[in-house]
């Protein structure tokens, strides 16, 4: 029972690391692109938000599995 909680915690941590890396890289690249092409900032921002939401969605899938594990224990 305690091990399942440990697993859920570690799993949530790893999932968040992955999502954080992904969104960080995405935001960095998007800001760089906006700096190079300020006139396209609106389109880049929309694309960035959509991509960020999709990355977040994957992270949430992982977190749901962690919640299932934690609640079951």
């Amino acid at each position, binding site marked *: 029972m305690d091990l399942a909680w440990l697993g859920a915690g570690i799993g949530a941590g790893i999932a968040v690391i992955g999502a954080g890396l992904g969104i960080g890289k995405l935001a960095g690249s998007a800001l760089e692109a906006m700096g190079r092409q300020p006139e396209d900032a*609106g389109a880049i921002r*929309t694309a960035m*938000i*959509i991509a960020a*939401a*999709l990355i*977040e*969605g994957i992270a*949430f*899938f992982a*977190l*749901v599995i962690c*919640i*299932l594990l934690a*609640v*079951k224990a």
Partner: protein
Amino acid sequence: MYHTVIETLSAADTLKQAGGSDSGWILHHVMDSHTLDFEPFFSIQLPHLEIFGIDISITKYIFFMWIVALLLFIILYIVSRKYKSTLIPKGISNIVEITVLFVRDEIVKPTIGKGYEKFLPYLLTVFFFILLSNMFGLIPYAVTITGNIAVTAALAAISFIAIQLGGIKSHGAWGYFKGLIPSGMPPWILIILIPLEILGLFTKPFALCIRLFANMIAGHVVILSLLGLIFILQTAFVAPVSIAFAIFIYLLELLVALIQAYIFTILTSLFIGMAVHQEH
């Protein structure tokens, strides 16, 4: 899949009732119940209704959902009435008009493209409903109805129906489902591709549901945890720090409320656009 998550959350509710965890009071704040809490002043017990063994009682979340819907109806009705007399917006019509134009020109038009008018009413409704309920949840003693998985699951289910109906209406049922699979594939690869595409149809609204739910509930849990630090450490010296952090998260929540309404609408409209215009 929805069912499992709902079951899981009610399992957490039972855990709370059993007093099995110390953070139970946080769960109490974000769980559905039959009482409207206005502690420490008073609390209202809501009646328990049952028809054919199905629990249809008006709970905390349903009560606040009706309030949000009523508020939205009144605001939008007043605004739409004002346009009958004059086309120049004044007062509250200004902000509603800006929001409607934003949804139409920045969200729906670029993502759906041709034939976006049919989906505009649904997407506007979803945007305003999610926005108002997210914002409403930030008022003290009010409940964030989008922080309940049943509410977001219902919203995602309606979006799922809108996506499929949009696709089927513009391509025909056979054409739409055939169009999901790229043409010119060798037959053996279809064995992998067809289940994958069917799964893909359902993961999109599932992600919509989980994203909204998790984002809205996470902010509340973080605020409550920060305030809970005072009671866990049992010292008043933590209070300034944790209250400052809680206010910071609260202001962040204002931003998240807007962004999540935006993201739910833009993703729904993106998926509708993908279903309607399968050629790209």
